């Protein structure tokens, strides 16, 4: 091995798999006809997607006056949902990029699905600011291009425009990263297929052969993409937080926002990965590839980032008091004890208290607890964005314009509809591409497979170059 080998190695692939078993297990879900569960899930997701399309048509036809947002609370559900989805879209790149740089092998079991999830979550996130523009047919005005209006340019000093750049860059770079990783696996599917399917996968696998030089370039590309995606993923939520932090609204213009948003994004992203993975591994029978060790590793990230978020909440309160600035103090007093107190306590409970249960090893390694807490965390992170946005705006400078916000059926439909959009895309993905990175799992088999390093290892599994091949050779000859 040319890479460093960690002293403590966990079994990440169970079931005494051979390379062929891995191909077989991971390709089969794309090859057999959909199961009944899949069809039901797809029908349900598609129904919600239909609701989304209807609610969006309604919004565009009638205008955003159909939403509950008003003159005081002008950013409400839409921006809450936007930030929520963008946050969810952070785990994929974190898993594939940062964990690649840290040489964490457990990433190979979950990176493919997490990256796909990232892309779909960013698609969902993008819907909200686009339709919040109102006259959506003019949405292309957000891009600076030579035009016949002057040319009139966009405001490059505005965090909202930075957001446009950050999110479109993030989306397109994540897509490249994901697809380039997918190409060798699509070639594997291609080489097993026949007829029309083979033609289709031939087209999408770009003529991949597995040549040594191509693999070398592929690894070089993956490494550099990981290297540049790491600051990118941190920049995206930093810039999203600038939307608030560069304003002059008490409760928003705090310097803690960038790290606090990034930690929150990773936190919610991992929670969503857990929600999806716990179901996916069961339904597609991938328990040998997405093991309890994988789930535990992700739960450790959740307890860490949840605690960072908790520290950020308390720091905010402390600084608000310590500033001696009454407007700041009022904003935070109002946030905790004001009209939206329930959302603040919901947020505190879901994001700070509940993940602490993961300090217990048994809970961390329990599927049911993981699934339950991942949902709780997702709800909590939604509350966080709602707390930041709606409670702050509801009590602004002028008591005469204080207001209360309630979502209308249109907004609720759009939000639940984006979940339909998300799950529809995810379900299609599980049918057309391997949800676990086949080539990457094969490449760690001999350092993380149970027959090599597990308690019943047939081979002596100590040291970097254990006698994996000699024994095999002896067996063969």
């Amino acid at each position: 091995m040319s890479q460093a080998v960690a002293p403590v190695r966990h079994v990440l692939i169970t079931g005494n798999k051979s390379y062929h078993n891995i191909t077989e297990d991971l390709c089969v879900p794309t090859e057999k006809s959909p199961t009944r569960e899949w069809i039901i899930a797809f029908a349900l997701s598609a129904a919600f997607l239909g609701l989304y399309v209807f609610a969006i048509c309604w919004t565009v036809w009638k205008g955003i006056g159909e939403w509950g947002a008003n003159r005081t609370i002008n950013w409400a559900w839409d921006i809450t949902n936007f930030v929520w989805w963008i946050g969810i879209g952070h785990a994929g790149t974190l898993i594939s990029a940062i964990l690649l740089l840290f040489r964490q092998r457990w990433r190979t079991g979950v990176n493919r699905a997490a990256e796909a999830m990232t892309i779909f979550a960013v698609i969902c996130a993008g819907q909200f600011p686009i339709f919040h523009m109102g006259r959506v047919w003019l949405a292309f005005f957000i891009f600076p291009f030579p035009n016949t209006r002057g040319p009139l340019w966009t405001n490059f000093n505005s965090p909202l425009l930075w957001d446009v750049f950050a999110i479109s860059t993030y989306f397109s770079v994540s897509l490249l990263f994901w697809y380039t990783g997918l190409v060798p696996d699509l070639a594997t599917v291609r080489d097993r297929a026949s007829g029309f399917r083979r033609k289709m996968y031939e087209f999408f696998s770009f003529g991949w052969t597995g040549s040594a030089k191509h693999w070398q370039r592929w690894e070089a590309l993956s490494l550099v993409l990981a290297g540049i995606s790491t600051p990118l993923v941190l920049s995206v939520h930093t810039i999203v937080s600038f939307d608030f932090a560069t304003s002059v609204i008490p409760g928003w213009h705090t310097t803690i926002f960038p790290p606090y948003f990034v930690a929150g994004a990773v936190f919610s992203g991992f929670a969503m990965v857990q929600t999806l993975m716990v179901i996916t591994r069961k339904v597609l029978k991938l328990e040998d590839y997405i093991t309890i060790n994988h789930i535990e590793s992700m739960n450790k990230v959740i307890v860490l980032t949840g605690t960072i978020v908790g520290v950020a909440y308390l720091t905010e309160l402390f600084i608000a008091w310590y500033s001696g600035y009454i407007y700041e103090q009022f904003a935070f007093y109002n946030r905790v004890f004001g009209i939206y107190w329930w959302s603040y306590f919901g947020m505190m409970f879901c994001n700070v208290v509940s993940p602490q249960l993961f300090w217990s090893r048994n809970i961390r390694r329990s599927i049911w607890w993981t699934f339950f807490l991942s949902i709780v965390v997702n709800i909590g992170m939604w509350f966080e964005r709602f707390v930041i946005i709606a409670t702050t705006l509801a009590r602004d400078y002028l008591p005469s314009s204080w207001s209360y916000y309630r979502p209308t059926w249109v907004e609720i439909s759009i939000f639940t509809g984006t979940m339909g959009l998300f799950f529809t895309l995810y379900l299609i993905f599980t049918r057309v591409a391997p949800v676990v990175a086949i080539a990457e799992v094969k490449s760690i088999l001999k350092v993380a497979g149970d027959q090599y390093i597990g308690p019943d290892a047939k081979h002596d599994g100590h040291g970097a170059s254990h006698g994996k091949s000699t024994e095999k050779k002896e067996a063969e000859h």
Partner: protein
Amino acid sequence: MATESKKVLYGLYNDEEDLKGAVKTASAAHLDIMDVYTPFPVHGLDPILGLKESRLHYLGFIYGAIGAMFGFLTMTWVFTRDWPIVFGGKPYWSVPAFIPITFEMTVLFAAWGMTITFYTICGMWPGVKAQSLDNRITDDKFCLAFDVTSATDNDVDKLKGFFSQSHAAEVNVKTLG
């Protein structure tokens, strides 16, 4: 990617360590290896094959630098020459505010530039037909290939002897292209 047809003699191995051993023997015997195909990146293969490190990352740096310059200079030109506007009493050329977009453009150009270069130099594009020797190479076989288009029978026999000595599981001939 060569367009003329090629006759290829190839051996399939069951394990990457067998393949590495065979590649070592082949380079020691000065056999001219056409290519090696594997189902996943095999570490430690590049040096024994004599492959130099990829220079893709240098290009990545250059693309990134172009992106940074493009982003920064465009904003500079727009706000100081083409349409200067005062925002919030700040100078026209307000450099700190340009940093986020400059950064994003750096990443965008580096990522797209490198990816497009990668596919181009590997001869890979949507719809390209794979010059694949065996369907199992993307599954669990490790392939070592020799170009025998203009080889004599004697040479071919020598290579076949090499394959049986290096414990290849299978030896086949296929015409590519």
